[in-house]
């Protein structure tokens, strides 16, 4: 990243990067202009989580979200699909370490579910978040990426300028 972008980071949005680390893994990174405890609070407080997990631009609406965020506790997200069906995502928390790490399972697709790990690392007055998804196999990962949840997103957001920057780098 160049110096110009760094100096602008307080006034412009931080970039989200996605990288397929291996055939079974995807790594998402993002920096937030806040200490880790605030980012952690926004992840682990259901009323706050509900406000950001489903951005308005996503073609889904969240009907309910319940979460018991502690080791062994579970979560359940229910979405409305076209006003005709519902779709549920659920799993269990494997690890919850305040302000630094949350690990959960994604059990809606049974045995094939991915394990998601979120780590928060403070860097000065900012926090680097790394979200890591580990799938059972490449096929399962690819199926997840092509599943309905991401349909038409490129169209919806139309952030082609950002795509150009990514690909031209």
């Amino acid at each position, binding site marked *: 990243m160049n110096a110009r972008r760094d100096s602008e980071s307080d006034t412009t*949005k*931080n*970039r*989200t*990067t*996605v*990288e*397929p680390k291996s055939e079974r893994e*995807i790594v*998402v990174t*993002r920096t*937030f*202009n*806040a200490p880790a405890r*605030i*980012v952690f*609070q*926004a992840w682990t407080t259901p009323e*706050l989580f509900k*406000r*950001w*997990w*489903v*951005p*308005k*631009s*996503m073609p889904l609406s969240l009907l309910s979200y319940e979460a018991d965020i502690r080791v062994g506790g579970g979560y359940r997200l229910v979405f409305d699909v076209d006003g005709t069906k519902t779709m549920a995502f659920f799993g269990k928390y494997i690890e919850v370490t305040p302000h630094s790490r949350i690990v959960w399972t994604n059990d809606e697709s049974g045995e094939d579910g991915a394990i998601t790990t979120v780590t928060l690392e403070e860097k000065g007055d900012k926090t680097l*978040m790394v*979200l890591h998804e580990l799938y059972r196999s490449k096929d399962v990962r*690819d199926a997840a*990426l*092509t599943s*309905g*949840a*991401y*349909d*038409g*997103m*490129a*169209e*919806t*957001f139309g*952030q*082609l300028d*950002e*795509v*150009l920057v*990514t*690909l*031209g*780098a």
Partner: protein
Amino acid sequence: MVHYSGARLDASFAALSDATRRGVLEQLGRADASITDLAEKFHMTLTGMKKHVGVLERAGLVATEKVGRVRTCKLGPSRLSSETAWIEGYRQVWGARFDELDRVIEELKRKENIDERKKR
């Protein structure tokens, strides 16, 4: 990284914004297929599949060749892979989520600052 011209990339992303077309690319990544095969696979009419393949072909993502009465499709010369497209879709979902999260965080920070001031 390969450099793409803006117009080509535009066409590619338009082509890839559709789930069926991404599926077709994924399928062709495994093996070449005729338009009839693809239409059957994606439960669609021949005309419908021809349109999708046409969009992919214009974007350079698919190449077709007519041998006898069968038009065979294979991956085209464009190096923009279907994986790149999925990753972009995925990035946009997370990007949008985290932009919203920024708003929540800013609010929490402001609230904390007010609480701090009250304590003094």
